[in-house]
């Protein structure tokens, strides 16, 4: 208590100094007078009485000084003095100061902006109650050998496994399964796509979320498909009904059913991401009744659901994992055919949500940090040079009694003043930078809406400023503290080159170049990856292709109307001038709809279901291959005759023929797929491979089935229109044709180019950012080299004069200086290449068709930086040797 009281008093003592000084003066005056009075009483002469009293005081000024030290906070006051002194010093050299501050401001702005994204996306806890207890349940990745990409699909689990987990586990407070997808919905008069999550009744309990308006599903509504009700997101409710409260009691039309809206969730709740409508999950066929064994087997490995859970115990992750491992081992014994080596992984939900973007964000964070380091090094070299110029000033201060610590502190305060000024500008720039980052981010980065320059970010920036001022202020300060005062005060002293300051400068130059090489090389590797991605053979032609997703909700029990819709629409579209070809596909390249196991010729009786090799399953309407330019290599394309009543037919791709048939003729063989039925289909054609999972993935085996024979999956197709000119211009025409046929059909139009761009948006974004940072790093580093070399040349002008007076040629002197500069550059570049190879290994997962140790890249980067360093050393060297030696020598 008392120390705090004292501190507050002393803090108060910082202000009103003049008034307090006057009061002290009065007090001391009265003291003096009393002492004089007493002295007079003792019989002294007035003069003597006064002299004696003053003498007794042993220095009034010292007394005041002691008093003042006790009154305020001396450290704070002298720091304030230092700061004011620093501002005066910096104002003497406004140009250099401003450039330095702007460089630092840029680096701080970049770091602040990136941190604000990292903070919101990675660090900020999820906005749910006790978010650390939320986990996902997935299969171990080894279970899913052959699963192509870590998409939502590879996180899916089977509903039968889920129900067993739910029944047998004890470590969870609650556990829910859900599915998510875009579905055709009619809220007003026109059908639209909305993102729909179907969730088991425990879902809202897992997230501890209650509707802000209305209620969630009751248990009966969740169980009885006849009483289905909907809960809306706040955003969707406002969009459709202007106001959340007005949505209650209204209906949304899903397919042929009107579903009453009973609740609206709080705006902050967004899980699964972008959901518009939450519906109770239709009860799985297995929920209550026992299944026939064949169907049960199929369901066991139909991994169509996602699972989330809330841990019962805040620290129960490990216990939950142990329990789930035990349960899956038991299921393996119970269902050896389907659950062999199927293991469950319990992982924090947050990690699951941000998992994909984490490496990218850390890469970007690391690269802005490198930019900051280089900026610091550049600043430090500049300050070192300046500190040398200030040697006389510092020496005088030392001679007048300033301790080394005092001088170091003063120089550090000077650095802090600069970095805080830079921080202020930087935060301003970061607000804009953050907006730009969010706007340019690839679409798969979650939680971007929360990104803002908030208190935490400002705190980070403040810490950064202080760290930065230490980083670039300490080298010159330490150098200054080591000064030998008497040595430096001699005329001409401090003009000797080399020494500790010189070595520090050289070390900084080496570090700058090394860091720049790391950043530039990584940037180049990423850019080359993007170029390779853009040139990857996709197997189809995406130019001038329009995609229109359409859901034709059937009204007849045999779904003939859905099929008629697509058949007639495609016929219409082929009549439109400018349309070259038209077809439709369930999962066009980049939008794989389903994957499943398959067998050729016969289905094995007793082998486990998951032993089948997986293939991409696709349902198409005739014309799709033409529209995408996929060649039919063997056999025939589908035609309108491949109808429900015709023999089942199928087309495979080359990858499947290669994988399953190894050169034997595929045509006429029977293919069985675990897709919608296990009836054998006859292979009638082989088509060329396409990269279904994006340009960075090799083509996978694929099975194409005619939409007329698979009408359940044939009701939602993407119409593919190849146009003669700009496809976007054709979009309204195509959309109107669809609406003309059926207004209750939801449609969404994109172009193939947009879809492809989306697939390489992430690599492009990170390559773009890294090139930007690399370019900045390059400029800073070369600027640093130039600054040091120019400074050294200036310092050595006397020596150069002497050398040239003694007969050295300008050429040899230049060579001397360039050699020194290039030795440093050589060390820096070699260290940089070593660092870059390590860095490239860390980002190996982001490289495409470029090796982390790509020789050409490193040679190119080293050549570029070497050349620029050469220029940066040669120009000052040349200028130095232009001086007339006589002029230089006369200066002495």
């Amino acid at each position, binding site marked *: 208590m008392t120390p705090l009281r004292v501190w507050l008093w002393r803090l108060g003592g910082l202000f009103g100094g003049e008034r307090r000084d006057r009061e002290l003066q009065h007090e001391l005056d009265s003291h003096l007078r009393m002492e004089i009075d007493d002295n007079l009483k003792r019989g002294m002469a007035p003069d003597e009485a006064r002299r004696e009293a003053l003498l007794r005081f042993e220095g009034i000024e010292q007394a005041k000084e*002691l*008093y003042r030290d*006790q009154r305020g906070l001396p450290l704070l006051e002298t720091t304030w003095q230092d700061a004011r002194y620093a501002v005066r010093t910096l104002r003497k050299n406004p140009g250099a100061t401003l450039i330095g501050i702007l460089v630092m401001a840029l680096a701080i702005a970049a770091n602040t902006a990136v941190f604000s994204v990292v903070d919101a996306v990675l660090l900020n806890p999820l906005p749910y109650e006790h978010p650390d207890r939320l986990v996902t349940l997935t299969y171990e990745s080894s279970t899913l050998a052959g699963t192509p990409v870590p998409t939502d699909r590879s996180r899916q689990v089977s509903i039968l496994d889920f129900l067993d987990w739910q029944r047998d586990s004890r470590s969870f407070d609650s556990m829910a399964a859900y599915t998510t997808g875009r579905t055709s919905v009619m809220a007003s008069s026109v059908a639209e796509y909305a993102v729909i999550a179907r969730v088991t009744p425990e879902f809202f309990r897992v997230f501890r979320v209650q509707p802000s308006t209305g209620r969630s599903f009751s248990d009966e509504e969740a169980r009885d498909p006849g009483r289905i009700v909907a809960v809306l997101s706040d955003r969707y409710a406002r969009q459709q009904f202007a106001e959340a409260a007005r949505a209650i009691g209204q209906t949304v039309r899903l397919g042929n059913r009107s579903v009453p809206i009973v609740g609206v969730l709080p705006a902050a709740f967004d899980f699964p991401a972008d959901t518009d409508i939450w519906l109770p999950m239709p009860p799985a066929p297995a929920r209550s009744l026992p299944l026939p064994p064949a169907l049960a087997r199929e369901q066991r490995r139909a991994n169509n659901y996602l699972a989330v859970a809330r841990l019962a115990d805040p620290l129960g992750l490990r216990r939950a994992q142990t329990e789930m491992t035990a349960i899956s081992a038991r299921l393996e014994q119970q269902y050896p055919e389907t659950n062999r080596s199927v293991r469950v992984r319990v992982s924090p939900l947050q990690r699951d949500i941000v998992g994909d973007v984490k490496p990218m964000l850390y890469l970007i964070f690391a690269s802005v940090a490198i930019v900051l380091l280089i900026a610091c090094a550049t600043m430090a070299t500049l300050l070192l040079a300046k500190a040398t110029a200030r040697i006389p000033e510092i020496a005088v201060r030392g001679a007048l009694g300033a301790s080394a610590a005092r001088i170091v502190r003063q120089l550090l305060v000077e650095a802090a003043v600069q970095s805080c000024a830079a921080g202020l500008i930087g935060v301003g720039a970061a607000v804009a930078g953050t907006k730009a980052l969010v706007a340019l981010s690839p679409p798969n980065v979650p939680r971007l809406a929360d990104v803002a320059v908030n208190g935490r970010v400002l705190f980070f920036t403040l810490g950064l400023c202080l760290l930065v001022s230490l980083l670039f202020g300490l080298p010159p300060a330490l150098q200054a503290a080591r000064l030998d005062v008497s040595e430096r005060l001699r005329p001409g002293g401090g003009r000797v080159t080399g020494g500790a300051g010189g070595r520090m400068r050289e070390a900084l130059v080496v570090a700058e170049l090394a860091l720049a090489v790391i950043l530039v090389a990584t940037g180049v590797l990423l850019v080359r990856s993007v170029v390779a991605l853009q040139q990857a053979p996709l197997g189809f032609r995406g130019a001038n292709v329009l995609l229109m997703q359409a859901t034709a909700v059937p009204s007849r029990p045999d779904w003939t109307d859905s099929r008629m819709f697509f058949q007639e629409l495609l016929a219409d579209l082929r009549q439109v001038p400018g349309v070259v070809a038209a077809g439709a596909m369930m999962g066009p390249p980049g939008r794989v709809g389903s994957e499943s196991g398959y067998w050729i010729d016969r289905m094995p009786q007793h082998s486990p279901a998951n032993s089948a090799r997986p293939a991409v399953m696709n349902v198409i309407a005739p014309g799709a291959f033409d529209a995408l330019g996929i060649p039919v290599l063997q056999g025939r394309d589908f035609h309108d005759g491949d109808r429900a009543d015709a023999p089942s037919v199928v087309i495979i791709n080359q990858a499947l023929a290669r994988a399953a048939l190894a050169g034997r003729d595929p045509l006429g063989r029977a293919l069985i797929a675990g897709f919608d039925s296990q009836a054998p289909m006859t292979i009638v054609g082989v088509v060329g491979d396409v990269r279904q999972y994006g340009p960075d993935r090799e083509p996978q085996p694929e099975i194409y089935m005619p939409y007329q024979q698979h009408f359940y999956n044939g009701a939602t197709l993407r119409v593919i229109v190849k146009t003669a000119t700009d496809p976007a211009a054709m979009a309204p025409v195509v959309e109107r044709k669809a609406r003309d046929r059926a207004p209750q059909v939801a449609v969404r139009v994109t172009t193939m180019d947009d879809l492809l761009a989306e697939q390489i948006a992430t690599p492009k974004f990170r390559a773009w950012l890294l090139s930007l940072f690399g370019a900045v790093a390059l400029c800073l580093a070369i600027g640093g080299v130039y600054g040091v070399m120019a400074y050294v040349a200036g310092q050595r002008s006397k020596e150069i004069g002497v050398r040239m007076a003694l007969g050295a040629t300008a050429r040899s002197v230049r060579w001397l200086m360039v050699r020194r500069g290039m030795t440093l550059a050589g060390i820096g570049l070699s260290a940089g290449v070593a660092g870059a190879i390590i860095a490239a290994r860390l980002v190996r997962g982001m490289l495409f068709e470029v090796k982390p140790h790509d020789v050409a890249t490193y040679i190119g980067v080293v050549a570029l930086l070497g050349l620029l360093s050469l220029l940066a050393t040669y120009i000052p060297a040349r200028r130095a040797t232009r001086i007339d030696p006589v002029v230089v020598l006369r200066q002495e």
Partner: protein
Amino acid sequence: MNDRTDVWQGTLALMILKTLETLGPLHGYGIAQRIEQTSGHQLRVHYGTLYASLLKLQQEGYIASAWGVSDNNRKAKFYRLTRAGRNHVARAARDWRQTTAIVARFFTPGESS
């Protein structure tokens, strides 16, 4: 004059407090006089330290100050003990006695074992 001992660091505060406790409100000069007097003029108060010490005691809340008029009609700043100061003096006096008693035992001849 120089054979007089300067007041030891730390004990000055205690002496000030004890002086104020005994004499009631007093100005800085009076305090210094009194301390030197009490010590039989063996101690010598450094005025600079005295005023810094008075300020420190105020900051700690043990004393308070107000302007008043001295015996010989001089305007002076008077210091008085606060309640916290009084408690502090009592506590410090007890500690002091205890400490000196312990130390004294070491210097009492014949009693060391």
